[in-house]
């Protein structure tokens, strides 16, 4: 039977190719959407994990890293460093500002960092070494044509771009990194604060624990000792942000994925239906030759399965290519199209849909009168 099916596919190779391409396009489209959601969650996690701390301390009651405003009193750093097991507490300040250039605007988050907490992957230029230096995410760099050495004006304050980083964006928002030496100048000289007292000087503390100390125990001790602060293991804080992302974006992207599956169902079903229906005369000949409708039905479902199996790697490659193109064009989006669960789910759905689409004309085969073939 496999031989028969392969011959059928080869007989009209262009049609077979079109069908494989269409199913591959459906697979790619679904994988891109699934990958978009997976990438969004990954970025939310990475924003926390890339700060490279053993424990992260926030304002009491603030259990998220992004999308929340955390303000710690200056003295918290000293209090935290006094806690047993803490080697060093590095300050980190997060500022949300809007960057505008040439009539276009983009929200950015500026992280003011000390020894740790800065960019983890600099792809052009280098880290901040001079006054007013800034490292920007490649999403911002690409969108506004900014490169190392260029000046960037944020809230009327001129920074000089020292480097461009990758994997430093989340929630459709690129990050930028500056050092503490420039923070006060930024506050005083720019328009960012009417009154410096209103803006945070310290948002989080990134804690290094002493060698051999258990981060969880250290976090518990910080919670107990420092009233104004909450302490989290980075994994926990990352999970909190991911959960917030799921709550916020899950329904909408979930709905869009459902719509994509619906569209995919229509497309794959229609292709198989049209492919099989166009071959009704030859199927009629086979019936006249004594093939049972059940055998022909099985052959048709096998054909649908084979087409989907051929389409699957092409769809995956297509989705990887598209994901790369999207990331190149707009690096603030991270698309992870080959998450195993999504690939398996998409493959199963497409196989099922192709089989259903192919089975629809099987009823026509069953009702096909072999004599018609000879009459025509």
């Amino acid at each position, binding site marked *: 039977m496999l031989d028969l099916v392969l011959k059928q596919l080869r007989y*009209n190779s262009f049609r077979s190719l079109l069908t494989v*391409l269409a199913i591959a396009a459906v697979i790619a489209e679904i994988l891109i959407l699934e990958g978009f959601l997976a990438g969004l969650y990954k970025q939310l996690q990475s924003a926390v994990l890339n700060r490279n701390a053993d424990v992260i301390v926030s304002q009491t009651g603030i259990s998220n890293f992004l999308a929340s405003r955390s303000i710690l009193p200056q003295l918290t750093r000293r209090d935290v460093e006094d806690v047993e097991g803490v080697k060093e507490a590095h300050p980190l300040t997060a500022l949300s500002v809007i960057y505008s250039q040439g009539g276009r605007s983009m*929200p950015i988050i500026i992280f003011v960092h000390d020894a740790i907490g800065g960019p983890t992957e600099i792809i052009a230029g280098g880290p901040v070494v001079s006054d007013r230096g800034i490292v920007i995410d490649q999403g911002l760099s690409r969108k506004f044509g900014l490169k190392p050495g260029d000046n960037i004006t944020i809230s009327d304050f001129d920074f000089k771009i020292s480097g461009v980083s990758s994997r430093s964006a989340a929630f459709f928002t690129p990050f930028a990194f500056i050092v503490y030496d420039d923070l006060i100048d930024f506050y005083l000289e720019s328009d960012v604060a009417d*009154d410096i007292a209103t803006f945070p000087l310290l948002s989080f503390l990134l804690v290094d624990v002493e060698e051999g100390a258990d981060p969880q125990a250290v976090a518990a001790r910080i919670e107990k000792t420092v009233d104004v602060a909450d302490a989290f293991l980075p994994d926990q804080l990352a999970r909190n942000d991911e959960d917030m992302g799921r709550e916020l974006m899950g329904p909408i992207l979930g709905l869009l994925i459902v719509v994509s599956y619906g569209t995919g169902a229509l*497309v794959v079903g229609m292709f198989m239906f*049209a492919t099989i229906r166009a071959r009704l005369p030859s199927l009629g000949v086979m019936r006249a030759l004594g093939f049972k409708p059940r055998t022909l039905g099985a052959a048709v479902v096998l054909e649908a399965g084979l087409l989907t199996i051929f389409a699957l790697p092409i769809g995956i490659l297509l989705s990887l290519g598209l994901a790369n193109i999207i990331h190149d064009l707009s690096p603030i989006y991270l698309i992870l199209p080959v998450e195993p669960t999504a690939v398996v789910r998409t493959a199963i759905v497409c196989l099922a849909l192709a089989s259903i689409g192919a089975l629809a004309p099987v009823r026509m085969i069953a009702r096909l009168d072999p004599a018609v073939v000879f009459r025509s």
Partner: protein
Amino acid sequence: MLMWTLKGLVAAPLQLLASVGAIAGAFSLILFFQAVFAGESDQIVAYIEKSDADVWVMQKGVSNMHMASSFISDWKAQKIETVDGVSKVTPILYLNTVMVAGERHWFSFIVGLNKGDSRAGPWEMAAGQALPGPSEAVVPAVLARLANLKTGDQVSIADRDFRIVGLSENTFSMANSITFIAMDDLSDIMSTFGSFSYLLVDAEPGVDPIALAARLQSDVEKINALTRAEFTNNDWKIAMQMGLEVVSIMTIIGGGLALLLIAFTAYNHVGQRERELAMMKAMGVRNRSIYASIMFQIGVITTLAFLAAILIVVVAIPLTAWLVPQITLRLTLDALFQVGTAAFIVSLLAAIVPVRKLVNVDPVTAFQA
């Protein structure tokens, strides 16, 4: 020729229906994306529009509300009150943070309202009171429903508990859920005293908001004063810009899919009628007429699919509002125009496949059979 074309279209109605349905699916995917972003962008500016201030005053260098932070000293509010043409100044504090409600975390914009002044508060209530007192909150009715909460229950903002005293309408969307609390409470949370985030300025009757904004800008140092229209437009633009790339990507993917589908349908269509076409060529029907006929058929299929896509999305909008109330959808004329243009281009490109096939049809085959 016209009759042949029409007959060709309806020769296999089930196949035509399946083709139209599948292509409509690809178009509706694009329309759906556009509707999501348009709906969300509308919701993002809902507070600015509904609070209906003539002029918005904020910190210099800030020109929008969504994802921004602004701080303006309280003495500036007093100064603005004395400016000619100003009828009322209503300050608000504003913070975007994560709120805990019903054991779930919700991203929310928290608006701090001045004691006893509901001017900047919710514009439509589902239940309870519109003005929160100390340790009280007015939350969106949709959020309360999703979190299984009612008036009298508690929500938590930055570890502080607030009792729900009111449920507001039209204040919830995926990216812009608005919670109202007392300004003093929000000041405490933000550790901000003696400053506000934004000032809502009402003009005296007959005063031009544009002129008033300009006057405020020149009279008060280090502020930015924008008319409601400008302020709305700034926020709407930033929301659309954030979504634009995603929408463009999905338009290209959906368009590519539609292109394949239409090309396949047309190819299938021509393939099934190859002998007829050979016969027509042999009978002297000019290629141009046959091409026109095929183009017409593709045009009809694309148009039907486009109309079906609109119908699908129009039906999906109320259905989505019912099933997933946190999502706001809006179909815009712009979106229809864009998808319509994409459909036209796609149908032209898709015609290349059958036309190429037609060129290769040899009239002699009509007599060989």
